[in-house]
């Protein structure tokens, strides 16, 4: 029973365009969501997060949108750069929002072409 799902294993985008990565969840008790970014041979690094009391959080080129009624969140990267090519994981804390016990999605591999 996968509570956090990323149904697109991969995404290819041209440099300068928008990248949209999607994530769905099933547990309506989740109140905090995070995106982690992972380069090959490295561990995931925290990218951006959003609380369920918000529907949008922006940090530079990265914006996360949350649609609670649809149990869906998305990460927008504008404009996309080749250095953004990585695996992106959506995650939610399995307990309270202040826990490192995270439930991850399967990841989406983003390729940004020059």
């Amino acid at each position, binding site marked *: 029973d996968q509570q*956090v799902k990323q149904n697109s294993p991969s995404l290819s985008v041209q440099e300068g365009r928008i990248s949209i990565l999607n994530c769905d969840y099933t547990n309506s008790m989740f109140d905090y969501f*995070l995106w982690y970014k992972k380069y090959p*041979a490295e*561990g995931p*690094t925290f990218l951006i997060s959003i609380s369920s009391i918000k529907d949008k959080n922006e940090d530079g080129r990265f914006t996360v949108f949350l649609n609670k009624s649809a149990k869906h969140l998305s990460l927008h990267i504008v404009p996309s750069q080749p250095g953004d090519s990585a695996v992106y*994981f959506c995650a939610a804390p399995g307990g309270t929002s202040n826990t*490192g*016990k*995270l439930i991850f999605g399967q990841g989406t591999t983003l390729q940004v072409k020059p």
Partner: protein
Amino acid sequence: EAGVTQFPSHSVIEKGQTVTLRCDPISGHDNLYWYRRVMGKEIKFLLHFVKESKQDESGMPNNRFLAERTGGTYSTLKVQPAELEDSGVYFCASSQDQTAKLFFGSGTQLSVL
């Protein structure tokens, strides 16, 4: 400041052997987590230490896995005996406070043949 370090980066062993993975968290981080990613799937929680105490080990697959954190500093994860399905990337992560924003190590790629 050094990040989370894991050793070894790669380990290839035969089924039935024992392997010990090590994680050195960021200095001063009381919270230490072990995660595993199998075959390109999702990253799954294994267990959580607060200092030297196991806070939550609900994700440990079975009793072939033993994690320790003596003295509340570095941690080891031992797999004995290893099975084929144990292959994957084992990540360690740490944080100073209880938070979902973790610092991950580069992982140990374990291959059981």
